[in-house]
């Protein structure tokens, strides 16, 4: 079992649900983004997801997309990003740090180089435009114990879901509905299938911990999925909080979110 999985299972013994919160590297500036990560880690959020911005983030909604374009004006460098977040990971051993980005920036860096640069500090990668069928591309990461975190979606073809679960390691990212990041969600997904049924179907195929994502924006919503998912993913909502009320509001939002669990 991967280090990330072990970590989550251990944490879950003391917490009813873990948080995974999202920051864009370089937004609004590289310094401020690092400060936001630090706040998250200081407040004991279990998993920090750092998005290295890409010019064409097709799986993201307007809030994160515009955040990425703003971040790109600060000319973020992937190598430096990995160094920066690796330092944070070392500084906060009680949390795990994941790198999220799109294929092309990673591809240009090269997956062998990426494996070398990320391990051992970074626990996993999320690449929304990397389909399971292309898993061989991330083999060098797997070899370096960096978990590729695959996505599960509602109404997924059973055979395909089995394929994903079979390759799953560390964490499975379960999307609660169709569409891009940042749209508000509800307890039942697009197809009206209940969350319970949805997640139960996945658990039947794997022991890997499950993260539930897309559209969670309040402690209220987090509490609603306690007992169902292992990890609650909060992305756009945090960015929105920052845009509404600055680093203060961002910090308060984290406090609100970690309040339970």
């Amino acid at each position, binding site marked *: 079992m991967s280090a990330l999985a072990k970590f989550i299972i251990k944490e879950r013994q003391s917490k009813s649900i873990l948080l995974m919160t999202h920051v864009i590297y370089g937004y609004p500036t590289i310094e401020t983004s690092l400060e936001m990560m630090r706040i998250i880690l200081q407040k004991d959020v279990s998993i920090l997801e750092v998005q290295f911005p890409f010019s064409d983030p*097709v799986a993201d909604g307007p809030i994160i997309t515009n955040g990425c374009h703003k971040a790109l004006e600060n000319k973020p460098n992937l190598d430096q990003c990995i160094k920066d977040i690796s330092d944070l990971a070392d500084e906060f051993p009680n949390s795990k740090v994941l790198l999220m980005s799109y294929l*092309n920036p990673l591809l240009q*860096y090269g997956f062998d180089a990426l494996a070398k640069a990320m391990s051992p500090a970074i626990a996993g990668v999320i690449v929304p435009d990397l389909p399971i069928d292309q898993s061989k591309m991330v083999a060098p990461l797997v070899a370096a114990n960096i978990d590729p975190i695959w996505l599960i979606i509602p109404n997924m073809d059973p055979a395909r879901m089995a394929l994903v679960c079979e390759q799953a390691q560390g964490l499975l990212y379960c999307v609660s509905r169709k569409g891009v990041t940042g749209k508000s969600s509800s307890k039942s997904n697009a197809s009206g299938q209940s969350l319970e049924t949805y997640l139960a179907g996945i658990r039947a195929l794997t022991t890997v911990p499950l993260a539930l994502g897309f559209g969670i924006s309040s402690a209220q919503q987090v509490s609603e999925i306690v007992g169902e998912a292992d990890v609650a993913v909060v992305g756009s909502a945090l960015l929105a909080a920052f845009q509404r009320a600055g680093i203060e509001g961002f910090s308060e939002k984290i406090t609100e979110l970690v309040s339970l669990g």
Partner: protein
Amino acid sequence: MSDQGYFGQYGGSFIPEILYSSQQQLLHHYRDAMADPKFITQIKHEMQHYSGRPTPLTFCGNLSAEIGGAQIYLKREDLNHSGAHKMNNVIGQGLLTKRMGKKRVIAETGAGQHGVATALLSARLGLECTIYMGAHDIARQYPNVFWMKQLGATVVPVTSGSQTLKDALDEALRDWTSSFEDTHYLIGTSCGCEPFPEMVAGFQSVIGEEVKDQSMAQFSAMPDKIYACVGGGSNACGIFLPFVGSDTELVGIEAGGRGDGIGQHAKRFNTDQAQFGISQGYATKFIQDDQGQLAPTHSISAGLDYVGVSPILADLSDRGLVRMSSALDEEVIVAFKKLMRSEGIIAALESSHAIAGGLKEAASLDPQQNIVINVSGRGDKDIFTIAKALDDQPFNDFLRNYLEESH
């Protein structure tokens, strides 16, 4: 047919998992439709009775004499309904959409030509239509936007990123991830995930098939060379594919823009500013920086102003089956004028890239040789760009006048 949508190392499918099933569904319906003679007949029928195919192959006597080299023929896609080759693909995918039982299409557009073609056919097929267009392009190409709206399409300005074609494509993909159940993404060029490159190139291949017959009928031989402009690559694929591997040399002309500086052109070949990359659902040569960020582009013709290129062409170029060249903005204006003055044909600025490339090389060929240049569209749409390029004051006076009167 491609293997898993791969053309050599290019192509493939790199889309968010959420799109997987609708892509599989499309793939299935597409293969099924192409195997159905009734569907093929339906496409041929609409191409003929709605769009006016076959388009002629026009011999240019004056031009050939002035250049003093090869005999020059033009494939007249400008005579298609909507004024460009885009309609060929739109007819194919539009009918496929109906066959799949979907009620809505979405599309990205740069110049607006694909958007207008899609809005036209959507009106005819009774499909709901939403067009994504970069805010910058909307400002540059409003007349096309006007027609899309008149045709009943919803035109969504894309304000993210460079606010041009690639961002419109991203936004269309985002729409698709939440609308795929009733919506087909009618992509406008031979790019994107499987089966789009193959499908669009296939529907456009009617161009090259006609050129084959017409060449035999008109000069009893296959063309020695064929020239086409290359934006996403659909008109080039359309006229090239039926000739791949034959003795006919195939030459693609990209937008050389203002020069080789970053952001000054839209060349994906013969420059190290373009590298193998993966984005927008597929692998190809993308113009990008050292961090893998897709780079800004420029062309006098909005239709060639794109950062990626058809994986089919990227592969054919690697295999030496297609030769890639380019033309600068000013060479394009010269070629545009020359064709207009010598033969009375007003080509689109996109197409004028192919004219520029073809005329440049025709001179050194001998009179026994025949070349075909693809006029992918007509130039009326470019009046604003051209009047500006030529600084035609009476045109501006006309506009001022018009604005005053409409108060």
